[in-house]
């Protein structure tokens, strides 16, 4: 009798465990099904040169051929299937007239700058009674402005020009969704080189000749290229940050190579061949 009771108990226990397991599996199933569906909805977006600047959304150009491959580790663009994805002609650029029409393209940046359309209409339209008399400070020193700093955090620690330039040296006085050149004429955010070249003329010349900066596409000197503009690689509000030694923001590196067979770590690399 006692034996029977034990068997019954064991059977009941087993049954309940099985039930619990199958319930857990059922619960897990929809979660697993949901995950790929979500991934399918939102294709990966990877950043190109630096975080916070131009980005590219993955899609298929041909079956099995993506326009870009993103790094699973850092989210950076790792491989371009289509170098001209989402580009427009660069527009007129002095010194680059030799290039055939349409062979220099850029990725428009204005549409990425989400606040841009509002700047000129909401606060900085430059017309109307509130700007008469003009509200810009005469001493050309930017006054701390919490609203601006909340929108563009880099402004709190502005690092460009070592204290010798201020906002209106680069941004247009009344058309705030534009930049400004030496003559006070507006310059598009898609062509910052026209502005940056005001001071960095040597870099502009090297950029125009293909020595400075980055281009993707065809390598021949007259080939169709996508030109990366200044601000796609450099953050103009923060170019002289002390924590770096190359003029770029720091990035997470991609994974290191495989260790040779049998090697546990790479500490031998830290030993100097010459003791000191």
């Amino acid at each position, binding site marked *: 009798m006692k034996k029977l009771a034990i068997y019954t108990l064991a059977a009941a226990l087993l049954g309940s465990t099985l039930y619990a397991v199958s319930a857990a599996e059922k619960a897990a199933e929809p979660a697993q099904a949901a995950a790929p569906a979500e991934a399918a909805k939102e294709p990966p977006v990877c950043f190109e040169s630096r975080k916070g600047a131009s980005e590219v959304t993955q899609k298929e150009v041909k079956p099995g051929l993506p326009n870009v491959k993103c790094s699973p580790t850092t989210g950076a663009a790792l491989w371009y299937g289509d170098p001209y994805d989402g580009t427009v002609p660069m527009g007129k650029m002095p010194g680059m007239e030799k290039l055939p029409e349409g062979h220099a393209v850029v990725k428009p940046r204005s549409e990425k700058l989400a606040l841009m359309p509002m700047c000129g209409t909401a606060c900085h339209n430059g017309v109307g009674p509130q700007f008469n008399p003009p509200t810009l400070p005469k001493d050309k020193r930017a006054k701390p402005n919490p609203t601006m700093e909340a929108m563009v955090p880099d402004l709190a620690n502005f690092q460009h020009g070592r204290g010798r330039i201020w906002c209106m040296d680069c941004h247009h006085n009344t058309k705030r969704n534009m930049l400004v050149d030496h003559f006070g004429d507006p310059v598009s955010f898609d062509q910052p080189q026209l502005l940056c070249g005001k001071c960095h003329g040597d870099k502009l010349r090297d950029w125009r000749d293909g*020595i400075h900066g980055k281009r993707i596409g065809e*390598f021949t000197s007259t080939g169709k290229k996508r030109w990366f503009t200044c601000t796609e690689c450099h953050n103009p509000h923060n170019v002289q940050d002390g924590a770096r030694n190359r003029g770029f923001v720091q990035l997470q590196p991609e994974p290191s190579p495989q260790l040779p067979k049998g090697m546990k770590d*790479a500490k031998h690399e830290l030993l100097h061949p010459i003791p000191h």
Partner: protein
Amino acid sequence: MTPDKTPPADPAQEHPAECPAPPASADPAACAPKTSRRDFLKAGGTLSLSSLMGAGALMSQSDDARAAAEWAEHFQKNYRLMTDAEKAEARVRLEKRYSMEYGKPVTVDTTGPQPGVLMGYALNIRKCIGCRRCVHACVAENNQSRGTRPGEKIEWIQVLRMERGKFEADKMNHGYPEGLGIQVGGNAYTPAGQVLEGQYHYNPEAVPEQDATYMPIACMQCEKPPCVKVCPVRTTYREADGPVVIDYNWCIGCRMCMGACPYWARRINLTTPVLPKEEMNPVTHYLGNRPRMRGVVEKCHWCLQRTRHDRYPACVEVCPVGARKFGNLLDPESEVSKILERKNVFRLKAELNTFPKFFYFYD
């Protein structure tokens, strides 16, 4: 035996791609069945094959394009000696085989050197931040093995982290010998890594680090390549437009070239390469990034499948700081020519007289 004269062993073998597995209701006559031994013998009898060809066809009959390709590859010439017709046939054979293996349409390009082009490369060593994006772009482009076990992960570009040396006041008197009190040499300098001695496996939170410089190295595509001199089967050679390439089919895996290369640029497939189907790059070149077999040496070829069609190499396109430059050395307007004209340039181990076409420069 010239492969272009080989009669087709059987019609079904020729176009396997056109005959996918039909639905159950389809008329079987619409799609020729897989090779049967009887069909073959019938065809073979009428065509009066030589015994060798018959044996070859019998072996290739076994399953698929892979076996046929392998059989034909045994009899194929060194790539440089192949006629255009033979190249075209090898190309068709390989495309069929790779498409079947990787489950997507794979192209194998055989475009030759373009006239008036001599490829050259320049790297701004002042700009490199050591992010290793070029290394992984190269792997994504060039179909290297990417397994996890030893020897299964192959990367062609190496990025070296070099310590920065410095002079220090507190080491002013660390001279030698100290016994006599006469200082004959100083030790105020903390040595930086010497040439080609640095860290490969650095992995900080963020790069660039303050106290480091980075030096990427890969194949230098020498004008006088030591690897070409030592190759006993002459399977590696300099193409007319610059890059040093390998005909993988003729490589015997002796690794003489790996020993001869002063830049540590060559890698061997010790194991069968691990190349997942979905990661495989279907745009390939015969001398470039087509999937390799076990036991052959491979190396950077400046993305022939891209550069023969005027496209930048993959590493150039992903460099986030624009340190990598590529162009035609014969075109005075190209990026590389402008760099040679205007910048300070050096070549790695120039004293070896290998005359690399890979230049390091700095602003």
